[in-house]
């Protein structure tokens, strides 16, 4: 069967296959209890990072623009869906339905933010675009931290100052509590849902890449002026890629929000640090290579956990490994050396001939 398919379809099926096999293996290991609870606990975060990496690769690899604010969309998705889940906790009894709706809301709100931010941002180019996405990400994080929302018999109350300024009736409850964020979100995220979300993300991204629209997006990446001259609507396709990417990041945010009981926006989860971390996955996995993003996200999320035995040294080793891998992968001298002495480099060269 594999022989009949063309190269891209085959490659896509391999990607799906890897994900499915990995899921089945991990699920078996979990159900037989042969992995530590610590490792089991990071299964959902791994799913989140895989989705984030794949969706960022759509912007960085396929659209060819550097975005440093990807965590901002995750933040939007997380907070909007957690807000919904908390409000509806007693209204919608069915957990699965509530989570499904929360997921839709998170994705739609993140997509709307993607459009709103994309329209001004995509007019810029290169490093300027990068810094503006970073700026938007930081603004989102800061705004969430001053947001107070409460609900009482009169409806919703908003404030940007503190809980007292909400002016609620005695029966009111605080839903979003500024820097303390949202507490008491139902923990609906499971490894299975994360896995399904990865498959959906892959389906969307891989199909987009191999569609007419995807080819238009890549044409813009390769040569904007040439693409424009053959009648490709630059703004439309750029915005399309950016919005889809934002929506998927929003989905990852929903998973994130429903994996923890307390959701706060701080520098480490929704700040530029997080965006950069995702970018590291994308670049290390190979820019534009979806399968690479998945593998890099899994390996680099597992690495600090596996190095936990080394305690204080683990992040140090992580940093050194990162630098060494970048040098080995990208330095022209290292590439030369690899082609000379390592067989897989040579094989590739012969294949090209």
């Amino acid at each position, binding site marked *: 069967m594999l022989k009949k398919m063309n190269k891209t379809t085959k490659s896509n099926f391999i990607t799906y296959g890897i994900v499915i096999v990995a899921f089945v293996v991990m699920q078996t290991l979990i159900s037989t209890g042969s992995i530590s609870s610590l490792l089991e606990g990071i299964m959902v975060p791994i799913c989140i990072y895989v989705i984030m990496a794949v969706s960022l690769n759509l912007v*960085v690899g396929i659209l060819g623009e*550097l975005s440093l604010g990807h965590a901002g969309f995750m933040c939007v998705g997380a907070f909007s869906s957690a807000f919904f889940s908390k409000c509806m906790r007693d209204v919608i009894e069915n957990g699965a339905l509530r989570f499904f709706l929360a997921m839709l809301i998170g994705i739609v709100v993140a997509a709307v933010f993607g459009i709103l931010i994309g329209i*001004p941002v995509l*007019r*810029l*180019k290169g*490093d*300027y675009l*990068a*810094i*503006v996405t*970073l*700026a*938007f990400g*930081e*603004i989102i994080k*800061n*705004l969430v*931290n*001053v947001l107070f929302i409460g609900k009482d018999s009169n409806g919703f109350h908003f404030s*940007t100052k503190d809980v007292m300024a909400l002016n609620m009736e005695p029966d009111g409850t605080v839903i979003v509590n500024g*820097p303390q964020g949202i507490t008491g979100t139902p923990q609906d995220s499971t490894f299975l849902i994360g896995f399904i979300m990865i498959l959906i993300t892959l389906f969307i991204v891989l199909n987009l890449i191999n569609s007419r629209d995807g080819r238009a997006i890549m044409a813009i990446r390769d040569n904007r*002026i040439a693409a424009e001259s053959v009648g490709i609507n630059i703004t439309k396709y750029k915005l399309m890629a950016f919005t889809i990417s934002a929506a998927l990041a929003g989905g990852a945010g929903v998973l994130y929000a429903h994996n923890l009981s307390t959701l706060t926006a701080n520098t480490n989860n929704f700040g*530029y*640090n997080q965006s*950069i971390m995702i*970018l*590291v996955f994308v*670049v*290390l996995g190979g*820019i534009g290579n979806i399968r690479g993003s998945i593998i890099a996200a899994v390996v680099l999320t597992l690495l600090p956990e596996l190095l936990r035995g080394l305690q*204080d*040294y683990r*992040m*140090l080793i*992580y*940093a*050194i490994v*990162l*630098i060494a891998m*970048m*040098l080995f*992968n*990208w*330095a*022209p*001298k*290292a590439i030369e050396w690899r082609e000379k002495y390592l067989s897989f480099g040579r094989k590739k060269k012969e294949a090209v001939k």
Partner: protein
Amino acid sequence: MSFISYLINGLSLGSVYAIIALGYTMVYGIAKMLNFAHGDVIMIGAYMALLAMTQAGMSPVIAVLIAIVVCTVLGVVIERIAYKPLRNAASSLSVLITAIGVSYLLQNIALLAFGSNAKTFPSVIKWSGITLADGQLNISGVTVVTIGVCLVIMVVLVAFVQKSKPGQAMRAVSEDKGAAQLMGINVNATIALTFAIGSALAAVAGVLYCSAYPSVTPYTGAMPGIKAFVAAVFGGIGSIPGAFIGGLILGIIEIFGRAYITSQLADALVFAVLIIVLLVKPTGLLGKKIQEKV
């Protein structure tokens, strides 16, 4: 009176941002890379000065000099080991990620060496400052010195880049590496020199920043680093006067935002102004507009 005092504080903070932004902008101009580790060099500089003053009991002037020397060496070593091998790499993102790796590395080295607790930073400036308008306006010594140092650095740096041989070499390399090499300029040495100057400035900025906000942790450098990066882009990345103006404006906006709006939204305000400026002028205030060739 409070307005003037906020303005002066803003100028002081802006001066620190400007000094850091100079490092970003010079490195960007010559190596076309965003040096994400620059903020952490600031932190290393602050720790070095701290160690020299508290552990070795040296005078502040010598401590600052030691910090400058250590950071200069550090900057050159980082460039040599981590950035130089990637100079001709196929993707410009690779060197960006490496810089992020270096940033993690410096933070974690500091974490292991000095611990995660904030250490109190003794002020390097003992002078209590000047009092104006019958005691209504008090300008601290740190503020005056910071603004002064920034002005001196700015003047010296512009003179250096415009007049001196190495400065001219730097401009030539940033214009066209290949042509500069053909003219007999040692490109590698020039880039190393740029990193040395940028890192030395980062050490100065680190000491000044920590004198104004007297504590230092392994993550001290991250936020001023990113703000200075914003300042550099704001002024037009690659332009030295741009970094200076961008830094000052950013510092003033931040202090005014904190004083008149809310301290939590001061950072958001800084970023919002950046976005507005870039949307009106997509290459920053003093950035060069590059014509696209078809």
